[in-house]
């Protein structure tokens, strides 16, 4: 409790929110930029600092169940079992770091974007950033949800106002996102309330819940029902096939920094919720038999169903991604596709699988944010997202080309980048789950290599198309300026850091998962992550 680091979490959450408030109170343009820049840097700094100070599991007080930097703030609903408890465990640490880093990059990119009404844009991004930091730092699952919604709302507004498509398309995308994501959030809210109520202790505190449910678990039937609610509730938020249609549309229309924060970080909330809440608290929920009232009754389990839908993400959306002609839309679809791997890892319910998902979330978050950032930079130079109207940009902008290539390779899952560890461990755990599913899922790598590399080739290599030549003649494209380069390099640096030194994250993940999933069978290969 006396650890001064425990006060840093509230600082990381409050700094962007306070900055947003200050800007809202009518700060003029220049000071607003400075305030925003500082407010984006603070959470990132805190996240990296806490990462470096993160203790081993055994060094954390036993009562905190692996949550370091624990702090508790009373807000008036203690009688309802709602407290603002903050802390990080091995599962939330990587996401907290991800949120900090991507937030900083998105903020820096927004600062140089020259968006219309920049102050309001920054304000909304700051609210989003505060919500993200809060969501991953909350031990209380009520606040976990609360902060997620706080981060979610600005996205709709930003898509509507600063969208990159035509007016009617922006409006449609914003509306569709709003309705889909509210539906998903509502389903998961009911799931969370159900846990709160059925646990018998009427508390939202994850530590209390874990302790109580370890002693007297809920009945299998109840676990099963709540698990189903959470899978679909969180699943919609993570664009589980076939509830994914909001995602490519929304990301295609979203301004760059919004897409970076949403696709990179916010979307991981659902997966994080499943790993942090559903797997430990509902151990029997995923594996007990359920009957789907379709086609005369299909006998399966929630994890079986999840694996099938996830294969839909990988294969169906993979093929759809290959058919895209619009760069930003393609990145949007590819992010939907990669969520399929994450769901597959989850479906194994194993330490290795879940650990792989956490690693993939970090890798994918960083790489997709980088891709969205660079896609917008490409758009500035080519005035189009149409792949067929680009070509030969590498001659004019070699740094941009190199960064985009690196981001593409990372998202395919090349060793050396963070994504590799995630995908690799997921496939390893998946083999124990079902070799058939593994075989099908691995073909996804080929698919993503095809569309990724084809995009790189079309944008950067070959001869400039007549359209691009015309644009280039009117406004000769320069290479990445410092304002664009800095956020991109931050993202790439962390991608490589985790890629070459995965243990810095995988050790905490592994320790936390081994304790929270101690009830599930440990796969023999679980040592892979620890190695």
């Amino acid at each position: 409790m006396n650890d001064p680091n425990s006060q840093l979490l509230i600082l990381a959450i409050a700094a962007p929110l306070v900055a947003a408030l200050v800007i809202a109170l009518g700060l003029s343009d220049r000071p607003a930029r400075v305030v925003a820049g500082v407010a984006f840097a603070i959470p990132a700094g805190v996240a990296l600092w806490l990462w470096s100070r993160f203790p081993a599991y055994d060094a954390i007080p036993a009562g905190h169940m692996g949550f370091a930097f624990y702090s508790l703030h009373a807000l008036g609903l203690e009688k309802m079992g709602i407290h603002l408890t903050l802390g990080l465990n091995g599962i939330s640490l990587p996401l907290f770091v991800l949120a900090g880093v991507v937030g900083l990059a998105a903020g820096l990119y927004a600062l140089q974007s020259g968006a219309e009404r920049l102050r309001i844009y920054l304000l909304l991004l700051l609210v989003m950033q505060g919500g993200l930091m809060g969501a991953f730092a909350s031990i209380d699952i009520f606040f976990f949800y609360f902060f997620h919604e706080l981060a979610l709302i600005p996205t709709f507004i930003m898509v509507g106002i600063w969208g990159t498509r035509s007016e009617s398309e922006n409006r449609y995308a914003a509306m569709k996102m709003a309705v889909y994501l509210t539906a998903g959030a509502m389903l998961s809210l009911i799931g969370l309330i159900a846990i709160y109520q059925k646990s018998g202790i009427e508390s939202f505190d994850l530590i209390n819940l874990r302790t109580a449910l370890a002693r007297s678990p809920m009945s299998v039937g109840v676990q099963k029902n709540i698990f189903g609610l959470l899978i679909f509730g969180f699943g919609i938020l993570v664009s589980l096939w076939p509830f994914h249609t909001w995602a490519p549309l929304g990301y295609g229309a979203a301004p760059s920094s919004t897409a970076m924060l949403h696709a990179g970080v916010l979307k991981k909330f659902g997966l994080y919720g499943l790993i942090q809440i559903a797997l430990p608290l509902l151990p029997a929920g995923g594996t007990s038999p359920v009957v789907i009232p379709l086609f005369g009754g299909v006998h399966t389990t929630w994890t079986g169903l999840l694996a099938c839908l996830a294969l839909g993400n990988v294969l169906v959306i993979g093929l759809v991604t290959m058919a895209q002609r619009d760069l930003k839309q393609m990145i949007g679809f590819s992010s939907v596709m990669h969520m399929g791997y994450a769901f597959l890892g989850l479906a194994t319910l194993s330490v290795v699988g879940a650990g792989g998902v956490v690693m993939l979330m970090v890798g994918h978050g960083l790489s997709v944010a980088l891709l969205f950032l660079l896609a917008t930079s490409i758009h500035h130079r080519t005035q189009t997202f149409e792949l067929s109207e680009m070509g030969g940009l590498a001659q004019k902008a070699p740094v941009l080309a190199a960064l985009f290539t690196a981001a593409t390779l990372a998202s395919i899952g090349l060793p050396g980048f963070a994504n590799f560890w995630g995908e690799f461990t997921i496939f390893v755990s998946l083999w124990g789950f079902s070799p058939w599913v593994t075989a099908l899922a691995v073909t996804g790598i080929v698919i993503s290599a095809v569309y990724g590399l084809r995009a790189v080739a079309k944008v950067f290599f070959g001869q400039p198309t007549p359209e691009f030549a015309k644009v280039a003649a009117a406004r000769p494209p320069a290479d990445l300026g410092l304002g664009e380069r800095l956020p991109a390099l931050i993202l790439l640096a962390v991608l490589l850091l985790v890629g070459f030194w995965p243990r810095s994250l995988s050790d905490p993940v592994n320790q936390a998962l081994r304790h929270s999933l101690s009830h599930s069978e440990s796969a023999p290969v679980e040592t892979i992550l620890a190695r």
Partner: protein
Amino acid sequence: MPAAVTLSPLHDIAASNDWGAIFPELLLAGLAVLVLVLELVLPRTQRALIPALSLCGLAVILLGLGINFHTAYLNQDTFAGLLHHSEGGQFMRVFFVLTAMLVCLLATVTLERHAAPGAEFYHLVIVITAALMLLAQSNHFVLLFVALETVTVGFYILVSYFRTSSASLEGGLKYLILSALSSAILLFGIVLLYGVAGNRALPGATGEGMSFSALRGFLAANPHNFLANLGAVLVLAGVAFKIGAVPFQFWIPDVYQGAPTPVTAFLAVGSKAAGFAVLMVLALDVFRPLQAVIMPALSLMAVATILVGNLAALTQSNVKRLMGLSGVSHAGYLLVGVIAAYREPSAVGAVYFYLLAYLFASFTVFAVMAHVSGASDADQDLEHYANLARERPFLGAILAVGLGSLAGIPPLAGFMGKLLVFIFAFKAGLYGLLTVALVGVVISIYYYFGWIRAAFFPSRRALDFAASGAPVPAIPRVSGAVAVAMLLLAAASLVLGFYQGPLGAWLIAR
């Protein structure tokens, strides 16, 4: 001494007349008279003092209520059992005075814009407020009906206050007819209850069938009596008219649209809250023995209210109608809370919290609506909001907070209200109602967000509208006092959303 014997009950009654118990209401009555006198006495140039004086008077009463919240009369009956003083009643008193202040504040904007006379308006608002306060504390059907009629008659005048506007007059007439019908239903129910309670053949029969305490005892002894159940259902139907629950919501869109904006706000918040205060006293306390009939009836009503309110609001482009129909859906969520309170008594606290959050959010939105309208007060279209955020960022931001809270988006108070209601509904095992409520919330996102979209997103269509349609009057400057009130309301929504503090603890602990 036969005379003395027959007079002694009257002495008892007179002795129980604790005028101190209704001191706030008496002060309001005095204030109301003062407003009228001032209008006669003051020269025309000084009449601007009247709204200021009304506001100050209300503020003083609010302060007094706040300081003396735990009065000496708490949990006692006064006036020979006509009134019962409870913490819930005190909460509603504060609620109504706060509502009245905000209505008066909005009136300064709307009445000035449409050059309507002032003093009678403030007078009526204050009288209605006093009646609402008595209504929430009534413990006897006679007082309940008299207070209710005082409220309703006041609203007849207020709704049709713009004498030259056909929409306002139409609204007034519709309110008059439908309200009279609902009063008749209510009275019929009261009479049935009174009659059946006086039936000597039944156990626990009482001659005091109008008194809640006596009636409670009678109903407990006869939970399955058909006439008693019918009477209770009819009484609740009369109350349902006030809260705008389906199938008694038909008056809402037209009346809300026609009424001057402050009156619409008063109807939406004050009248609805009064309905819920009465409903909680009746359904949860007096009629509790009839639970087997009342609970399914209320559940059915809640489902219909949520669905009809939300679906009907989807298609509205006039924002006053939209507020009315979305208010219907809020009544539905509140009904869910009331039903949950049968099994989880603390749910009453959630209902109060929801009402408070609804008050803050609604007045935030109505305050913006008072400034943004077409040529007449009834003509308030979504198109009038085009580019509001760009041209008047203050109004845009305030509107966003209000709508966000109504839609139930964290970190605003409306979200906490919904969450508390949902938690209690879950605890009470009302899974079906909960599902319907969730569907309702998702639908509501569409139209609340559509409004925000109209105000915030760039729109070319709006320009066409402005070019073709009737000239739209410029949005007036927001006066200092109103701006401060709007800021405070928005801040209240924001703060209550993440810090409920002692208020939350008090509401839930009871």
